[in-house]
């Protein structure tokens, strides 16, 4: 066990798995000599060589598409999108080639695509997105989004070992802000939710960076005890944990950093409406980013992304319902 940042934990997970399994290779833009735009793979090329830490051409469709090809002949590629936003250029390969392969042909595609997601630092409209819902909507892809260092490592190792294409959403704003104890060695974190804090009066359901925003917003909320459920995995979505949370707290705020329409949070709200209605004691309340590109200038960006204050206000209103 040692204390690591979220970013170090991701590096550690990659390194452990590359040491353990020679089929694992990294592919991405500037991941080799430079060590990646965020330095996740710093020093990897020295340990594993340029063949396994591959600096690719600037071509996202090719990164995903060639990873599929390598996977179906026995490798375990881990692709890095330099920023999650650029996965738009590899969308087709992921959704149409990788995602549908097993259903159509019984052929497994064990690839992991790492997406540095999220805003909060003036990245602007093309370096701040949270595109997880694009992939939740595409059959055959798993989607995970850790919020802690320990889970970042464990979910990444589980993603690499999974026989399916996994979209791994790592929130950029957590890279160096979040630290925690991380077990040594290789371990897998299951693709399911965890309770980030116990409570009975109200629940906040979130994932990724919003787990931390939710914890902060509800740490001291007029004496109410607030459960925070960290989804960790969006596909598969931990229905049982969500519904159990509804049964326990009866009041639910769903927080999502992505644009509101058809977001992961919308799916959670729909699930509760369908299967948890009888346990509710108030409307499901959503806090999310409006359907607007993420603006560059700090006051504009802050006006868009869910904040501690907005979550607090939503919780207070629901508690008073």
């Amino acid at each position, binding site marked *: 066990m040692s204390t690591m940042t979220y970013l170090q934990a991701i590096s550690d997970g990659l390194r452990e798995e590359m040491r353990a399994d020679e089929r694992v290779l990294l592919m991405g833009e500037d991941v080799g000599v430079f060590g990646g735009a965020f330095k996740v793979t710093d020093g990897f090329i020295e340990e594993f060589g340029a063949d396994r830490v591959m600096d690719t051409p600037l071509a996202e469709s090719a990164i995903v598409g060639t990873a599929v090809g390598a996977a179906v002949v026995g490798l375990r590629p881990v692709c890095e999108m330099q920023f999650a936003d650029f996965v738009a250029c590899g969308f087709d390969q992921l959704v149409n080639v990788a995602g549908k392969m097993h259903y*159509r*042909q019984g052929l*497994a595609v064990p690839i992991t695509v790492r997406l540095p997601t999220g805003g909060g630092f003036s990245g602007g409209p093309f370096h701040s997105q949270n595109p997880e819902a694009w992939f939740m909507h595409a059959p055959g892809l798993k989607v995970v989004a850790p919020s802690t260092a320990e889970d970042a490592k464990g979910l990444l190792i589980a993603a690499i070992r999974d026989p399916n294409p996994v979209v791994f959403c790592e929130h950029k704003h957590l890279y160096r802000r979040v630290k925690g104890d991380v077990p040594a060695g290789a371990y897998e974190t299951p693709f399911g939710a965890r309770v980030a804090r116990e409570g009975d009066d109200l629940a906040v359901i979130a994932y990724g960076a919003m787990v931390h925003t939710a914890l902060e917003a509800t740490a001291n909320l007029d004496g109410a005890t607030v459960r925070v459920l960290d989804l960790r995995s969006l596909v598969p979505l931990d229905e049982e944990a969500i519904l159990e949370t509804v049964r326990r707290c009866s009041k639910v705020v769903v927080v999502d950093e992505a644009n509101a329409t058809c977001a992961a949070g919308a799916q959670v709200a729909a699930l509760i409406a369908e299967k948890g209605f009888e346990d509710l004691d108030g409307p499901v309340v959503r806090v999310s980013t409006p359907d607007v590109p993420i603006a560059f200038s700090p006051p504009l960006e802050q006006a868009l992304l869910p904040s501690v204050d907005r979550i607090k206000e939503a919780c207070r209103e629901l508690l008073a319902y």
Partner: protein
Amino acid sequence: METDTATERSKLAQAAASEHLTPDDRIALLRTMLLMRGVEARAMVLYRQGKVPGSFYDGFGQEAVSVGAAFAMAAEDRLCVLHRDLGAHLVRGVPVERVFAQYMGREGGVTRGRDGNVHFGDKDLGCVGMVSMLPDMMLVATGMAMAFKLRGERRCAITWFGDGSTSRGDFHEAMNWAGVQRLPVVFVLENNQFAYSTPIEQQFAVEPSKRAAAYGFPGVPVDGNDVEAMFEAVRVARERALAGGGPTLIEAKTMRMHGHAAHDDMRYVPKELLEQWRRRDPIDRQVARVRELGVDVEALRALVDEEVEAGVEAALAMPMPDPATAREGVFAEVAEPLGDGLAPWSGFGPDREDDR
């Protein structure tokens, strides 16, 4: 851009000679082309009878492209097969009844009714089925080749794609990547003059085989209606790839003799153009060669027809998939890589020519 001048034709005829085919190979090439044509012609009838749902695409007139190219591939090579390339599946060993069952959406089809028509690949025979998005499979084949190179294996990947799909970005991304990394991959462009109704003049300003130079590897125009020329070009490209020479783009010049799909009467294709290509039919050409070997071609045709009919009968007897299973199989429980396919070329026999 059609190369129909006398000089071009004689050049193509010369290129047709392959010293690497035995009489049995030549017969096998013809037999597989006849089988492809027979299966597709029969499937078209089944389609009109309402027994093949959805749409139906065929490769009538293009049989030499997939049969000749696939014939040059070894068991351990890997193929990403396109929609006019039924011949490649037949070479690799997919039984005719499974092809018909595939077209009919039956449980015994290669995708067990999960996908239709030529959208299939038998994973146990080293083939990945295409997706509709063209030419996505160029990148998958490039990735396979990348894995072969990384592991130091003497294996090769091949993929087919049409003239229309050369306009999309994935064509560029695959050509560039394969060129940069000098990967053992063979790209077979099926230039059949039309992409749906769009003629090649509206698709590119520079012939694709010439574009290969810009990616650092050869682009080789081949008479795509000569199955032996196709075989030879791919054999050479594969040898080059195995020797570390990198990719080759083979531009198979051919003609789509039917509409884009069953619904298309292709009135946009000039009659004379079709007539001109009909005289260059790939099967007629190989029939002439095989007759010279003293083979009874009519007997061969009869055997093929029997195989086709037996395949239809067997497929019609197969059940449709159980609707209760419609949600199954989206995710894999285990990851197993592709298996090896058949490689009928005599060069892959006991005294294998390619010094593996």
